[in-house]
């Protein structure tokens, strides 16, 4: 089996077999990270493709200062967050169009996203939690997704997000507070 450094060197030379090995080895990790952030399987697959194309095109800029997986996580997270930003912009534009009556037939997306990795007993609760995660500010959403869905330690999350461990601790603490607040509102409405 080829080691990671050799694989990356071969990819830098445009070796297709090396590229295929990298895609096969890391596709679930990339897809799962993006899926957790965008919460839509079709969009997540398209974005995972974008990520690997970026990897192929930009591997020359990878200096090896961080782990390759950290670099990959960083590209995946940035790509997913950029996508959410552009979606938000389009939604805002659609809203303006609906006000002027010139279009904007975009309907509000159904919030109940079901992650395929959740076991059946937790399906409904996880859907409620994902809806709350979706409303988090993007840095909290990224930190929470990387930690909870990918099981990264705070140190690993800090490397991906290019920040300090204490900043990640703070992000996670605020994310938990915000989630509790949202869940409380949700269950106060739906539980009685």
């Amino acid at each position, binding site marked *: 089996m080829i080691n990671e450094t050799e694989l990356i060197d071969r990819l830098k030379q445009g070796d297709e077999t090396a590229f295929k090995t990298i895609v096969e080895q890391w*596709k679930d990790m990339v897809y799962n990270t993006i899926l957790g952030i965008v919460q839509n399987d079709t969009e997540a697959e398209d974005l995972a493709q974008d990520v690997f194309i970026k990897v192929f095109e930009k591997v020359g800029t990878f200096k090896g200062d961080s782990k390759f997986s950290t670099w990959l996580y960083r590209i995946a997270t940035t790509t997913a967050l950029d996508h959410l930003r552009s979606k938000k912009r389009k939604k805002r534009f659609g809203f303006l169009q609906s006000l002027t009556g010139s279009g904007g037939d975009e309907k509000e997306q159904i919030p109940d996203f079901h992650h395929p990795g959740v076991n059946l007993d937790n399906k409904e*609760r996880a859907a409620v939690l994902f809806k709350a995660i979706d409303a988090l500010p993007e840095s909290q959403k990224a930190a929470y997704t990387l930690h909870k869905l990918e099981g990264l330690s705070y140190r690993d999350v800090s490397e991906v997000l290019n920040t300090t461990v204490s900043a990640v601790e703070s992000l996670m603490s605020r994310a938990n507070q915000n989630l509790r607040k949202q869940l409380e509102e949700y269950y106060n409405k739906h539980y009685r």
Partner: protein
Amino acid sequence: MTPQEKIQQEIERTLQSLDSIKRAEANPFLFTRIKARMNRKANGWEEGIFSFVSKPVIAIGILLLVMAVNGWALWDGSGSGENGITDPTSSFSELANEYNIVASVNNYDYENMTNE
């Protein structure tokens, strides 16, 4: 258990619902799809230009621009003469002046020709 306690319990359970989550699996044909996309991308700028021009908004925009240029050309042309009518001889005399052929044209004025 009070309703508030039940809600708190439900919140805790919800927050823990991702604790045993498994990683979602990507499409097994992801690499094939990536390759197809990269090939499409490598097919060059012609396809890009074609797909750009064939967008309805762009196509209609170009059509309107061509129509506007044509309309402007017509309007400009019809407004150049006096009372909107172009004098057909004016351009001829301008040409004649330019090439200094006025005298030679007069030589063909047979009706007023005198024997010199």
